[in-house]
C-alpha cells in the first residue's frame, strides 16, 4: 500500500464516521408532530400544535415561566410552560406550536412557534372597508 492509498482510506474513513455521527444526531434530535395523548405518554421531545385556550395565559412568578393551555381540534387540552419571553402576536395566533418534553403535569417547551393570520389572507376585506379617500 502506498502513501496515497493510506491517505485516501483515512479520508474516506473520516467522512464515513462523520456521516454516521451526523445521521445519529439527526435521528435522535428529530421532534415529530404528535397528538396530545402521545405527548403525555412519550418521554422524548415532541412537537404539538393547537390553539390557545382563551384566558389561560398567565405568568408563573415562582417558576419564572409563561404558562398556558393549548386545545386541539378534538377539544383535548394540554398545559404548556415556557421559560422565555412571550412571543409577539401570541394572543392573536391562529396556531401555536410547542416543542418540548412532558414533565408529568405540563409540556415544558424549549421553543414556541407562533403562526399568525397570514398577511395575505383575510385582512384585505377586513381592513379597508371603513376607510376611503
Amino acid at each position, binding site marked *: 500500500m502506498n502513501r496515497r492509498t493510506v491517505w485516501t482510506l483515512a479520508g474516506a474513513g473520516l467522512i464515513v464516521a462523520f456521516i454516521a455521527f451526523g445521521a445519529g444526531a439527526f435521528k435522535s434530535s*428529530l421532534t415529530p408532530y404528535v397528538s396530545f395523548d402521545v405527548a403525555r405518554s412519550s418521554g422524548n421531545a415532541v412537537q404539538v400544535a393547537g390553539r390557545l385556550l382563551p384566558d389561560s395565559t398567565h405568568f408563573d412568578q415562582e417558576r419564572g415561566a409563561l404558562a398556558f393551555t393549548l386545545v386541539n381540534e378534538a377539544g383535548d387540552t394540554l398545559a404548556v410552560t415556557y421559560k422565555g419571553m412571550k412571543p409577539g402576536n401570541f394572543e392573536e395566533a391562529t396556531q401555536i406550536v410547542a416543542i418540548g418534553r412532558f414533565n408529568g403535569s405540563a409540556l415544558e417547551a424549549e421553543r414556541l412557534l407562533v403562526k399568525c393570520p397570514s398577511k395575505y389572507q383575510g385582512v*384585505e376585506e377586513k381592513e379597508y372597508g371603513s376607510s376611503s379617500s
Partner: protein
Amino acid sequence: MFIPGVVALWVAAAALVASTVFYARCVRGHDEARVWARQLYGLMVFAVAVAAAVLMYLILSHDFRLHYVFSYSDRELPLSYLISTFWAGQEGSFLLWLLWGALIGLPLARFARHYEDRALLIYNLTLGGLLLLLLISSPFRFLEGLPPGQMPFDGQGLNPLLQNPWMTIHPPVMFIGYAATAVPFALAVAALWERRYDEWIRVALPWALVSVVALGAGIFLGGYWAYVTLGWGGYWGWDPVENASLVPWLTSVALVHGMLLQKARGRFRKLNFALASLSYVLVVYATFLTRSGVLADFSVHSFVDLGITGWLVGILAAALLIGLGALLWRWREIPSQPGDEPFLSRTAFSIMAIATLLGAALVVSVGTSSPLITRLWGEPAQVKPDFYNEVTLPVGIALALLLAVVPYLHWRGAAPGARNRLAWALLGALATTAVAAALGASGALFLAFLFASVLAVLANTVKTWEKIREAGIAKAGGHLAHVGLALMLAGIITSSAWDRTEKVTLPLGETRQALGYSLTFKGVEQQKPGARPAMLVEVGREGGSTFLSRPRMFRNAKSNQLVANPDVHVHLTHDVYVAPVEYDPGRPSEHGTTVELAKGESATVGPLRLTFRGFDRGGDHGESGHIVVGAVLAVATGAGEGEIRPILRSTATGFEGPPVAVDGVPGVTVALTGVNAAAGRVRLQVNGAGGGVATRASLRAGETLTYRGIPLTFVDLDLAGHHREGGPLDIRAVFQVAREGGEPIRIAPAIYDLGGQQRSEDVFVPGLDGVLLRLARVDAETRTVQVAVLDPAVPADPGRAPQFSADISIKPLIALVWTGLVVLLLGSLLAAVRRGREFGGAPEPAP
C-alpha cells in the same frame, strides 16, 4: 395591476429574451450579433431599474391601492424605514435581487473576455428565473376587491421588529451576495461548454469573493440584529432563513479555496466546476425552502405560498440540470493529474478545509430540510437546534486545527523553520488553555476547541504580521481573514460556554441580587408621549459603578404585537444583557380617594378635613436637576389640628409624590399627585381613610342595597352637573338613604375623567361612621351603576406594586464574535480587491 410597473417588467422580460437569443447567435459564430446582445442587455437593466424606481415611488407616495404598499408600509414610518419596506416582502426582495443581478451582469459582460457569449447566455437564464417569479407574483398588483377610485387611508405598517437600522441594510447586502453566486456558475458552465477549463478561475475568483464578503456581511448584520433586538440572548438560532444564508456562504468559501488551489497547482478543475454549480444551486434551493411555504409549520418566520412553489422547483431542477449536465458532458475530457504533495502542505490542507466546509454545509442543509426528508417515510418532523450545535462542533474543531497549522505550510510542503514557530504558538495556546481550565473551564471537547482556536489566532496573527511587513497589507487579506475566523471561533465557544443567565422578578423600587449584580426596577420611562416606553432598571456591581439599563416592552399600537427589546451593555470582557420577560402593571390600592383643591378651599375625606393653604416655596427640598413642588395643607382631625407639607418631585420616570403620614390618624396618608400652578390648584391622593371595600353591587334605578341595616336606594343618574375640572365625563348617581324617624337624605357620589384617568368622588353614608359610597362604573344607556361600599372596619387592599421580570445574562468575550467576523470580512474584502486588480492587470490571454 399598476400598469407602468408591469410594462417595465414585461419590457425587461422581452429585452432579456432577445439578448439571450442574440448571445446564442454569437455562440454560433455570428459575431455581429454581440452588439445587439449587449444593447438589449442594457435595455433590460434599464427596464428593471425603472420597475424598481416605480415601486419605490409608489411606496414613498403612499399609494395604498397596491397590495404590496398596503401590506408593508404606513403613513407613520420615517423615511429610512419607508425606503426599507421596498424589501420587506417577498415580491420586493425578488425585485431587489433581480436589480443587483442585472447590474452585476454589466461588469461581467465587460470582463468575461472570450467567455462572454456563453457566460452571459447562462447568466441571462438565471435572471430570467427571477423575472419569471416577479411576473407571476407581481409587486404591482392592486388589493383585491377594491372599489374603483378608492384607496385605503393607511397601510398595515412594517413589522416593528424590522424597524431597526441593522435590519434595513441587511437584505440589500444579502441579495448582493445571492446575486453574485450566479456569476461563477455562469462562467463555469461557459468554460465547460467552450472547453477552456482554466482561465475562468481568474474571471470568477473576484466574484466568488464578492459573494463571500456580501453573504458574510449579511450574516453579521442579521446575527447582530437578532442579538440586540430579539431578546432571546443569542445571535444565531438555526432558523431556516438564517441557514439559507449560511449554506451558500460556506460553499462560496469552499469555492474560493478551490479556485486558489487550481490557480496555484493547475489541478482540481472538476472540483471547482462542481463547487461553482453547487453554490448557485444551493442559493436557489434555499430560496425554495424559505419562499415556497414548505417549511411554514417549522419556522418562526411566517412563510406563505404565493403560488410560485412549482416554478421554484422548476428553476431548481433547471439549475441542477445545467450545472451537473455540463460537468458530466465534459467529465472525461477535463484533464486531471495525480498530485505528489505531502500531507503537510497547503494543497492537502486546502482540500481538507474544503471537505470540512462542505461537511458543515451538508449537515446544515440536511437539518434545514428535515421536514422534507422525514416526509419520505412518515410525518414531517423537525430537528431541534441541538442537532446543529452537536454536529457543527467537530466541524468547528477541525476548522480550528486546520487554521492553526496552515500558516506554516507552502503549497508543496512545510515552510522552513515551521517547527520552531509552531512551538511558540503551541506554548501560547497551552498557557491560555491552562488559564481557562484554572478559571473553571472543563470538558475535553471544549478545552480542545479552545486550544485549537487560540493556537489558530496566534499562528495566523504572526503570519499576517510577517506578510504585511514583507508584501504590504494588500496581499495579506487571506491571512487576515483566517485571524478573523479563528477569533470568531474562540468567541463563539467562550461566550456560549460561560454564558450565565438568571431570571429575576423586580417589584418596583426593590433591589434584587443576580449574578453578582444588584438590580432595581425604577419604573417605566416614556420620554415623550408616543415614544416607545422602556423599563428602567438600575444595575450595579457590588462596590462598583451603576448604570441604567433600558430594555423595552410595549404593544405595537398598529398590529397589537408585543414587542420586547433587550438592552445590551458592552464591556471590554463581557456584555451585560437584560431581556424583558414580563411586565405586570400591578393594581392600585383601592381605598384611596382623590380631591382637588384651590387655594383656601377645604374638603373632608374620611376623618380628615384638609385645607389647601398655598404652595410651599420655602425650604430646600430639591436635589439638583429635579423639580420639586410643595403644598402646605392644614389638617383637622378628631385629635386636633396640624399641618403637613407633601411634595411632588420629578424623577427619571416622571413625577412622584411620596405619601405623608397624618398625626393622630394611623394608617392615613396624603400624597401630592398633581399641581396646576397657573390655576393655583393641587390634586391630592388620600389613602387609608375609607378602609377596604366591604361590598360591591350593581344597581338599576329603583333598586336598593342594604349595608349594615341602612338601605341605599339608587334613584337616578344626574348627568346635568359638571365637575369643576371634570371635563366631558362627569356623572353623579343620586341615592336616597332612608333613616329611622327622619326624612330620607340624598347623597350623590360622582365619577369623572381627569386627563384620561378615571377618578371617583366618594360620599359619606349618613348614619354610619366613616363609611363611604363610591361610584365605580356607570352605564348611562341602561341606567345601571356599579357601586362599592368602603368601611373603615374592613382591612384595606394595599394593592400590588408593578413588577418587571427579566432575564439577565453575562456573556463573556462575545465581542470576539463580532470583531472576528469583522476582521474576517475585512480580510476577504482585501482579497477580493487584490484578485480583482490582479485580473484587471493581467494581459489578455491569446484566444
